């Protein structure tokens, strides 16, 4: 197990493919917090986030042979987690549609720190975490994912490029577009 600790993720998954279950446990330890933080920002619920990350690892366990050495392990596992999170969000949205009639932004009651609106743009009240989370929640994909990875988890462009399997240039331009969208949404929410 000590030996395993020095291995890369890709070496660990390879070992696990050879039925070394200790390698799997190490991967779980390496990724559980990162993934929970990632998924938590989608779902806004710690219990759900933990369940979903467990489901992610169950998939990794069962489908270990579908991982090919081609891609980074991180890309693979974030893909699984991200797809599960989005699928959960879709389920929730459907449930919501059945229980409530079409609710727009109005249904989300958020309390800004202070509703000081300064149209001259000189003085602003800082945003509360909740307010930001509401705005992130409204972001369409792929902006939501990129915002979580870059602006909350503060991953490097390079890591994001690996995780999302898109070129660095695309990551950068997407980060900027996501930020502008977020700012728009925040202004909208404060109006």
């Amino acid at each position: 197990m000590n030996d395993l600790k020095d291995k890369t993720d890709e070496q660990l998954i390879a070992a696990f493919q050879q039925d070394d279950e200790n390698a799997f446990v190490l991967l779980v330890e390496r990724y559980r917090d990162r993934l929970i933080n990632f998924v938590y920002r989608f779902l806004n619920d710690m219990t759900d986030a933990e369940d979903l990350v467990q489901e992610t690892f169950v998939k990794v366990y069962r489908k270990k042979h579908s991982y090919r050495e081609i891609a980074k392990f991180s890309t693979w596992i974030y893909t699984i987690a991200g797809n599960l999170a989005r699928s959960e969000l879709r389920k929730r949205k459907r449930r919501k549609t059945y229980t409530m009639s079409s609710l727009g932004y109005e249904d989300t009651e958020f309390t800004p720190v202070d509703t000081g609106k300064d149209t001259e743009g000189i003085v602003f009240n800082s945003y509360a975490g909740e307010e930001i989370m509401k705005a992130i929640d409204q972001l369409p994909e792929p902006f939501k994912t990129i915002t979580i990875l870059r602006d909350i988890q503060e991953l490097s462009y390079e890591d994001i490029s690996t995780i999302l399997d898109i070129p660095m240039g695309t990551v950068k331009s997407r980060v900027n577009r996501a930020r502008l969208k977020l700012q728009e949404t925040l202004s909208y929410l404060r109006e």
Partner: protein
Amino acid sequence: MQNSDCGFIRNQYTEFKDNTLTPETKAEVDTHLAECHACQKVFTELDQALSTMHSMETVQASPNFTTTLLSKISDSEPAGVWQRLYNSSYTKVAGYAIAAGMVVAIGLNFIIDPVSGVSGGNNSNFTIEQQVDTNNQENLVGASDSALMAGNDSLNLNSKTINSGSSTLQLVNGGN
């Protein structure tokens, strides 16, 4: 303040903050910001939003996360690893029950269809094995499921080829 520039200026926000703009573009942004309140507002609001996001607390897995996960895995281990199944007395009982069911079913088939005799019995036996196989597959498919393939967004990794350095690698989706 030329409004036509606002879109261009805002597109530079990230690089402006990362300090990766050319000196010319940086000067252009500075000049524009000095005159344009609308862009100033966008930049300041983004600064504030980012600083809040950067200070958001991180969450951690509960202490029993791994234990819970491992027990989930061993509880729901898909069939096929018979040896593993037989290691647990609980599943041993279930295994015997399935085996008994198969024997009864095969027996019944002989009773119900005495005319086709041995060949009928063989067919039936084969069918049962197939059913067991199908169940296993369903378990596996359940594990991969549509979620992995759902959505055509950036995170989706349906079979795709990635060129990584000199080697071309085949990335295969979990739903094989």
